[in-house]
């Protein structure tokens, strides 16, 4: 019997790993069993599970990029963003719990980089799911001690006069780095600017991209 191809693509169009065809692991069996048990008991509905998966798929770093582009274009917005990140992104229709988003501005003298050494806290509402490296031991243990060596592995070299500030998300705050606006971008509109803002620049392991 042919597989239903709709299962192989997420709503955002990306292919799932072909786990559908691989032998079931005990953890996958647990996931299926828990999900069905919870639906049977009325704890969750199938609809909300599907909708939550789809909502996750629809979030991407493009959302964070829009916030950055607005801050670059509008200095009043930038001031509000730096003073109260949650309130400022709410203005743009993005969600963050009150007082929980802190935006960190990169300048010629300060470069910010974010980590969660204790687990994998990440501003998912603005950036989507975190990359694998962010969740792994190498990044989490090394960036708090040797941030410049870690940044170098990402291809980023900072001058000595630029202080590196590492931010460990140990409690309720989530952090978004506001990268430096690249030169040669005068007059660009927000959409064009947002295209230069890559995910890694909002974590702090890269700069925003230069315009072509």
């Amino acid at each position, binding site marked *: 019997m042919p*597989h239903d191809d709709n*299962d192989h693509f*997420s709503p955002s169009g*990306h*292919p*799932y*790993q072909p*786990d*559908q*065809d*691989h*032998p*079931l*692991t005990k*953890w*996958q*069996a*647990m*996931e*299926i*069993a*828990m*999900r*069905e*048990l*919870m639906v049977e*008991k009325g*704890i*969750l509905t*199938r609809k*909300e*599970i*599907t909708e*939550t*998966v789809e909502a*996750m*798929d629809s979030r991407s770093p493009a959302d964070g990029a829009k916030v950055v582009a607005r801050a670059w274009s509008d200095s009043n917005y930038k001031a509000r963003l730096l003073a109260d990140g949650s309130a400022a992104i709410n203005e743009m229709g993005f969600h963050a719990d009150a007082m929980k988003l802190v935006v960190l501005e990169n300048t010629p003298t300060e470069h910010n980089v974010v*980590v969660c*050494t*204790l*687990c*994998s806290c990440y501003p998912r509402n603005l950036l989507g*799911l975190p*990359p*694998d*490296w962010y*969740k*792994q*031991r*190498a*990044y*989490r*243990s*090394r960036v*708090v*001690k040797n941030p410049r060596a*870690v940044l170098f*592995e*990402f291809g980023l070299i900072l001058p000595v006069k630029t202080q590196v500030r590492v931010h*460990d998300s140990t409690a309720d705050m989530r952090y978004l780095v506001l990268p430096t606006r690249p030169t040669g971008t005068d007059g660009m509109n927000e959409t064009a600017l947002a295209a230069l803002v890559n995910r890694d620049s909002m974590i702090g392991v890269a700069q925003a991209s230069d315009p072509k």
Partner: protein
Amino acid sequence: MGGQAADKIDLTQHNFALWEKRVDALLVLTSGKGYFTVDGLRRVLEDMGEEAFETMTYYERWIQSVNQNMLEAGAYSLEELSNKIAEVTARGETYGECSGGGE
């Protein structure tokens, strides 16, 4: 974990599997409904210890933690879960075959 010796950063990125996204969704929904807190999730993950970190993937650890938290919350019993797991695994060999009932 900060400051411990570790390797070079591995920049490879795996595509999220559907089952992993479902684990994430289960976590978001059940914690959102108050069955447990993110703190409880983390506490169970920490209690799983170093070996779990070495031998299990990120989402394998998460589903284990969600399960333990849900058991602690009394959402279902271990017996109910055991029966359900047996029922699920009897359906077939692959994730696709076994997950038919959930969506």
